[in-house]
């Protein structure tokens, strides 16, 4: 069951009504935005529930059990509760910055999905600079965290905001260098091209020895850091900074940060799937199912990290990035270049 066909059918139906092309495009765009928004909202709710179940089972608990089958309605109830909550703005806060920070955070998380290849032909827009666009848009998250930290006018929030800025900037570089090593092989920045270059399982970039696995591990580590999750969850370190940058947020604004965190986790896993695990490629099942399955496996790995490891200290975090990951990723890029140039493994 390929979803792309269904969407195509509706698009052609729209064209056949005889509307001017401009209107057709606008309607199609709005529809795409609504569908993706709906998907992400459901996805974030599901991931919240799933994280609770995963953490519970790792800790020999059950997690939510009372509301519906294995508590699946729990996060829906939580979301409704958050929407109903009073929205508090601290008196000393910088109101504009405080107001826009969560919106910016959510929009940045949302906008990435323009170029996300969900399945064969299931992509909103196949930009020819796709992966560059992803890297650029995800960087907006840092600005929003900094805004939240500064705008709250709270010392813990400020420390959290500063930490997140330092952290994401340091980890962005090895991540981009690692993505470059894959792009080098593909010869294109387009997400669809990246997926199509991995048609067979031995062509997946994770299996292209020796550079592939190293690149994948670097990507997962930096991805964990980008999404601010344990062992890199310093911006919101509960035990040190109480809640870090979002300490002053409540109600819907908090929910936006919260949902954005889970959407970002999905994003990182989805990009990882696209770059290293062959994206939507796979036999028998429809392509979107392969994409979702692989992505959820990566999401599970991120959750596994979180519920196993302690947290690094801020200076150790920086050291790890600048003294270990960055040289390693550059060396790996050179290795990938040599492989490409010499023609090994160019299947």
């Amino acid at each position, binding site marked *: 069951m390929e979803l792309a066909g269904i969407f195509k059918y509706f698009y052609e139906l729209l064209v056949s009504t005889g509307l001017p092309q401009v209107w057709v495009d606008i309607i199609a765009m709005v529809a795409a935005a609504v569908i993706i928004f709906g998907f992400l909202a459901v996805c974030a709710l599901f991931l919240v529930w799933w994280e609770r179940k995963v*953490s519970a089972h*790792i*800790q*020999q*608990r059950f997690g939510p059990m009372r509301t519906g089958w294995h508590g699946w309605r729990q996060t829906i109830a939580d979301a409704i509760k958050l929407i109903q909550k009073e929205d508090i703005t601290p008196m000393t806060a910088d109101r504009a910055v405080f107001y826009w920070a969560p919106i910016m955070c959510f929009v940045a998380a949302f906008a990435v999905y323009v170029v996300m290849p969900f399945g064969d032909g299931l992509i909103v827009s196949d930009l020819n600079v796709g992966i560059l666009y992803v890297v650029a848009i995800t960087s907006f998250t840092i600005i929003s965290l900094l805004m939240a930290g500064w705008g709250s006018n709270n*010392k*813990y929030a400020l*420390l959290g905001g*500063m*930490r997140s800025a330092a952290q994401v900037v340091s980890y962005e570089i090895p991540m981009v260098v690692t993505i470059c090593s894959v792009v080098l092989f593909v010869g294109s920045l387009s997400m669809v091209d990246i997926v199509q270059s991995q048609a067979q399982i031995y062509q997946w970039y994770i299996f292209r020895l020796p550079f592939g696995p190293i690149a994948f591990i670097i990507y997962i580590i930096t991805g964990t850091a980008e999404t601010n999750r*344990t*062992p890199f*969850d*310093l911006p919101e*370190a*509960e*035990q*040190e900074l*109480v809640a870090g940058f979002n300490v002053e947020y409540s109600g819907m604004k908090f929910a936006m940060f919260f949902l954005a965190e889970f959407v970002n986790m999905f994003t990182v896993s989805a990009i990882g799937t696209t770059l290293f695990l062959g994206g939507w490629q796979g036999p028998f099942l429809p392509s979107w199912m392969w994409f979702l399955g692989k992505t959820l496996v990566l999401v599970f790995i991120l959750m596994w990290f979180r*519920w*196993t*490891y*302690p*947290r*690094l*200290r*801020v*200076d*150790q975090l920086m050291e790890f990035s600048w003294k270990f990951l960055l040289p390693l990723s550059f060396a790996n890029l050179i290795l990938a270049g040599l492989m490409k140039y010499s023609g090994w493994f160019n299947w």
Partner: protein
Amino acid sequence: MSEIDKLQTEEFVLNMGPHHPSTHGVCRFVLKMEGEVIKDVEPVVGYLHRALEKICENRTYAQIIPVTDRFEYCTSMSCNMAFALAVEKLAAMEIPERAQYLRIIMLELNRIASHLIWFGTTALDLGAITPFLYGFREREFILDLFEMTCGQRLTYNYIRVGGVARDIPTQFVPKCREFLNIFDACVDDYERLLTENVIFVVRNKNVGVLPPEKAIAWGVSGPALRASGVKHDLRRDDPYCIYDRFDFEIPTCQNGDCYDRYIIRIKEMRESAKIVRQALDKLPEGETRAKVKMVFKPPAGEVYSRIENSRGEMGMYVISDGSTKPVRVKMRGGSYNQLQVIPEITRGHKIADLVAIMASMDVIMPEVDR
């Protein structure tokens, strides 16, 4: 003068607590910081002051035992014990053999329970949430044992002047053995989770180093002192009850950093389990409480008794004038000294290290404030 030098700067003062997830109760730290680095720490105590010592002056000796429960609620048995020991010393009482062994069993089980709380909160303070649940899972076993013995899970009121409140139920010994049989494997589990975890090691090694001279000068006792390399344990050096009859090791480390304090407590849990095993093997039959008069009046005098608690030396100084109530009771807890030394070893570290040091010192606020 450059532009930057002309800028007005203020000291960054961060109030950590009294309500903060990792201050273990209601302790407040006033931190003077430069970015993430701590220039100075000032612990502010007193938020949990309940005037326990004053309350003791208005109660009979039997009524004081439940008050001592609240002194250090993670190891209530030890508090009962310290007070009972002081009064028994004053009255020169003979304690039945069975009661002696039961006391040892309860004290050591309580030490394990207390160390399990420490284990969980230490991991939690460093950001690992899962070990917390594991520690509490095993603690639950011990609490069940206590519950079947004295009906309480936190404030036991079990060790009384002259013995223990009542005999253990028949299913206690098999249940306790069952727990001890799985316990070593559980500690192995904890060690697999944390001891060799790279992140845990780098967070704790060379953090909050407490040299032995400084530890002695500040009156630090218990595991924190032994981690600095001083082999001092009241169970061995000044045996109370019948600790001299048991065979157990006193683990010590050399560096005195957070990691060593962690290692010491993990080893102590194993040693405590060893002691409980020996006590269960030797447990004699007989009375569990010496005859104590209904209106109990110890002779006039002063006495100080001290025991090795899981957080260091716990002492009770009791002055009696020969009436039914003490004139003065002074409680000494190890946490107070451990909290005092924290600023000394925290300066120059990061804010995350303060949390690690606080956790490794295993400070508990009710013991500090009393």
